[in-house]
């Protein structure tokens, strides 16, 4: 846990090619999901004449802004299946990608502060175990043992009444995850094209045949959208709607500290979550801004509430300084589950709606979305997450069910 152990900065792990006139597939969005999708398209499906188009710099969107929490303790079978598959991939990816992105399985605790929380949490532990997801229920003393700086006294406003604990959960160094995927994509022949904004689509009837970009028109047989906060903007360009609302979500870090926080602690009820980064910063997040926004910044009152909760739970944080705050734009759905699959436009595929919690899903999103793009059909793991569920009513309602949303 020190800066000495950080992997090398990738100077430079991938080429910066000019866009070609045409590709077999184009991925819009060079965040973690776009990179993972391209990687699995090349590795599992042999599609190497493909490009990732990124309007800014590689993985500079939510991939660079998230708080890096990885867990799979979701309530419903469909979510548990896809997030647990992701977690299993996280466990093997550093070796497969030959790049150490500091995946640290230090465990994640989700605190319970009310009787309702306790019942819901115990239920989720049971559901997780039935789905083969490691989960335990901890009483306050066990919580204290795992994270000694937590205040478990019962005379605070929302005392800690216990926690669910997933030992295999943890954090990874997000930038390095992106670089690891980018390097392998590049090796496999994928063109990563930065500063290339998609501004429109070319269609033949209802079939997409190309993309218009700030660096010219590119013909392609297939388009995969991995644009997180901007998914509905792109869908509109392609002529269809998505049940997505974009909201600002922010996070912050303290200055560096000695290791004091050995695990990840999340609280839905008082809404703060904390981990300590490998270098030593305390990394903290809270909820989204209530209103729609594309401004990549968040409201100050959210930070105030989050700090109040953090200081009550972790009294030693009262002396820590906030070093930096920032925001990202997350694409939320009404059932708090992602949309991965076919779109109303032929040969165009959508991967979006991961909202505040899609970093952990990166490998499984990439793997299943690549399958969908290559075969034109859903993968068993992403099938339940199809757009049609809003019509059929087969929603996967993870709101509140899976602890704090990230």
């Amino acid at each position, binding site marked *: 846990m020190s800066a000495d152990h950080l992997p090398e900065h990738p100077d430079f792990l991938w080429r910066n090619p000019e866009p070609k006139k045409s590709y077999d597939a184009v991925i819009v969005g060079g965040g973690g999901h776009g990179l993972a999708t391209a990687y699995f398209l090349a590795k599992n499906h042999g599609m190497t004449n493909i490009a990732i188009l990124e309007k800014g710099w590689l993985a500079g969107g939510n991939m660079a802004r998230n708080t890096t929490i990885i867990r799979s303790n979701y309530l419903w079978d469909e979510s548990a299946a896809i997030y647990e598959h992701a977690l299993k991939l996280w466990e093997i990816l550093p070796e497969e990608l030959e790049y150490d992105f500091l995946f640290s399985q230090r465990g994640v605790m989700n605190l319970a502060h009310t009787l309702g929380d306790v019942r819901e949490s115990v239920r989720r532990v049971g559901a997780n175990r039935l789905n083969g997801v490691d989960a335990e229920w901890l009483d306050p003393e066990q919580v204290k043992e795992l994270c000694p700086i937590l205040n478990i006294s019962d005379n605070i406003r929302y005392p800690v009444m216990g926690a669910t604990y997933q030992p295999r959960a943890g954090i990874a160094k997000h930038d390095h995850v992106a670089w690891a995927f980018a390097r392998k994509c590049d090796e496999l022949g994928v063109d990563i094209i930065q500063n290339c904004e998609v501004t429109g689509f070319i269609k033949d009837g209802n079939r997409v045949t190309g993309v218009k970009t700030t660096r010219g028109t590119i013909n392609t047989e297939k388009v995969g959208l991995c644009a997180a906060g901007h998914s509905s*903007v792109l869908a509109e360009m392609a002529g269809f709607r*998505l*049940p997505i*609302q974009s909201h600002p979500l922010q996070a912050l870090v303290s200055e560096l500290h000695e290791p004091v926080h050995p695990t990840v602690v999340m609280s839905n009820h008082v809404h703060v979550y904390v981990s300590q980064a490998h270098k030593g910063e305390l990394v903290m997040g809270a909820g989204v801004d209530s209103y*729609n926004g*594309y*401004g990549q*910044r968040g409201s*100050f009152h959210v930070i105030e509430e989050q700090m109040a909760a953090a200081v009550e739970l972790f009294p030693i944080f009262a002396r820590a300084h906030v070093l930096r705050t920032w925001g990202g734009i997350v694409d939320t759905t009404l059932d708090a589950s992602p949309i991965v699959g076919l779109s109303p436009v032929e040969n165009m595929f959508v991967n979006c709606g991961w909202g505040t919690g899609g970093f952990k899903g990166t490998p499984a999103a990439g793997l299943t979305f690549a399958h969908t793009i290559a075969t034109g059909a859903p993968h068993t793991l992403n099938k339940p997450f199809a757009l049609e569920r809003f*019509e059929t009513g087969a929603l996967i309602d993870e709101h509140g069910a899976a602890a704090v949303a990230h």
Partner: protein
Amino acid sequence: MLLISCPNCGPRDETEFHYGGQAHVAYPESPNDLTDREWAEYLFYRENTKGTFAERWVHSTGCRQWFNMLRDTVSYEIHSIYGMGQPRPDIKVPGQSSQTDKPGEFTQTGEFGQTEPGLAPGAPTTGVPISGSTAPTSSEGV
């Protein structure tokens, strides 16, 4: 934090309000006749505009009244606040609909009824004055 001018109470912090999503979404006239697709549209599909967006807010810790607001979802500038049941003001946002508009200058026109005499540009067409101020309050997130 947004500074929102409640039509009844005047400018207050965002924390006094709750967000109600897209404005002007009418309940279907004959819900029983809707297809599953149309029902899904009504329940789950909302605009997610990057730019000027009409949305609803409620002053939950004040007068508890709902109202509509036109806000830019990129700059977070509030262009207009107007009553429930009032049509969306036809506001020309600089750089979006007309090049000749000066920044901060708004007009309301034709389709949505007459601009009442003496009413400040951007003020609600109900004629309910936004207390204390004539121009729409602009504000922004932090």
